[in-house]
């Protein structure tokens, strides 16, 4: 039997809330979501009808198969239903309708919206217009909070904690929104040492470095060679170094292989290191790494779905049978 949420519980206050960035979610709420996702992972049959009668609207103005399927599966696995569109061509936007009008309309049909849009800030516009919770499923190169929740859940599941870790982030650290969001969120929890591995052309922006510096318990080191630091890492977050980010092709060709993770480089890593990647992976992780137990990137996909289940059940205000809402317990793997 489901436990009743105490009316003053600090944990039920995501009910009715939109999540545009992770700044909208407190660290205690993130910890709560991590605990809830772990519970869901172990109790999928029990929660399979928890959201019966609830409807998720996926408003995807640009294609993103993985994220859309993850949101939709998350709602279906909670027993809810899904409506929506998967590209702007299928939506009224092709007739010139604003985001606000579309969302106001959909608010009459659904209980929660997941929106993906190529314009930065689109999810905030939607959240302002909607009368139901809106979850940002990616707004251009700006924010993608549920990806960061998936990253955190993967660290949690591998290490039983998201603090006291040495986390390497490798590749394109200039334009990678997932990297910036992960760093900023880990800084809110503290006690993380970041090793920032990138070519000088793709270094971490100063405002992100300032964020690390502002966190008393976090520190960083910038390096350009992956092999020299991989042995120190608890987790390695890989991103793709894209050709179009370079001013000339020679630099790209010179650096490209440096940032490809293969078995030779992985041999230098700790046996417990976890390799994360927001996917899609192109060439930056050699496919033979997939079979190594340190590869955690497909686990990350599952964790993304579990965290979306945890988040959606929270914002639509449903209780999960057997889940202790108000137990501020540790989140062990």
């Amino acid at each position, binding site marked *: 039997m489901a436990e009743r949420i105490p009316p003053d519980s600090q944990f039920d206050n995501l009910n009715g809330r939109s999540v545009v960035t992770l700044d909208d979610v407190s660290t205690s709420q993130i910890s709560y979501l991590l605990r809830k996702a772990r519970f869901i992972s172990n109790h999928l049959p029990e929660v399979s009808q928890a959201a019966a009668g609830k409807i998720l609207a996926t408003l995807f103005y640009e294609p993103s198969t993985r994220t859309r399927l993850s949101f939709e599966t998350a709602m279906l696995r909670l027993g809810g239903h899904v409506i929506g569109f998967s590209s702007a061509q299928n939506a009224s936007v092709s007739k010139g309708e*604003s*985001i*606000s009008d579309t969302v106001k309309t959909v608010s009459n049909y659904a209980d929660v919206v997941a929106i993906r*849009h*190529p*314009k*930065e*800030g*689109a999810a*905030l*516009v939607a959240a*302002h217009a909607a009368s139901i919770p809106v979850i940002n499923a990616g*707004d*251009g*190169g*700006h924010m993608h909070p549920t990806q960061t929740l998936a990253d955190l859940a993967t660290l949690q599941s591998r290490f039983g904690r998201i603090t006291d870790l040495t986390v390497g982030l490798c590749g394109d650290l200039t334009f990678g929104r997932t990297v910036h969001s992960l760093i900023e969120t880990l800084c809110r929890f503290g006690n993380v040492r970041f090793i920032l591995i990138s070519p000088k052309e793709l270094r971490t922006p100063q405002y992100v470095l300032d964020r690390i510096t502002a966190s008393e318990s976090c520190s960083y080191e910038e390096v350009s060679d992956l092999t020299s630091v991989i042995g120190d890492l608890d987790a390695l977050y890989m991103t793709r170094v894209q050709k179009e980010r370079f001013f000339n092709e020679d630099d790209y060709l010179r650096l490209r292989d440096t940032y490809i993770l293969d078995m030779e480089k992985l041999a230098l890593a700790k046996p417990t290191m976890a390799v994360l990647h927001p996917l899609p992976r192109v060439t930056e992780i050699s496919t033979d790494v997939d079979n190594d137990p340190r590869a955690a990137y497909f686990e990350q996909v599952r964790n993304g779905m579990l965290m979306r289940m945890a988040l959606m059940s929270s914002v639509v205000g449903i209780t999960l049978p057997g889940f202790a809402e108000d137990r501020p317990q540790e989140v062990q793997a």
Partner: protein
Amino acid sequence: MMEVTSISEGIIIDHVPAGTALKVLNYLRIDPTTASIALIMNTTSNRYGSKDIIKIQNAPDVDLDVLGLIAPNATVDIVKDSRIVAKKRPRLPQKVTNVLSCVNPRCVTSTEHGIDQIFRLTNPETGEYRCLYCDEAAEL
């Protein structure tokens, strides 16, 4: 020697950064073609070397928040019956609405019609403002 007649009712905005008086008027939404104003530009300032001064006769309510955004060191004298009855210093507003426009072409404000252009103060020490929607730094 240049002489500018004093105003009897209105405001005097002093210590405006030299050369920016017209820009300040534009941000304050005061039309220099119709308002009764006196501009003194690039005059000597003991404090800053040079400055502009704006005198506005019968000034409507001036949005000091906007002034704080573009001329934070300015001072505002309120004039009534030819006397300065109050002095005000603008402060950096926490949020400015429909004063600045986001220059980021990827920002939703470039395509979504009917929404306000909102910037929030992100660094009070440097006076940095960022777009509420896309976090792009404001260009003043």
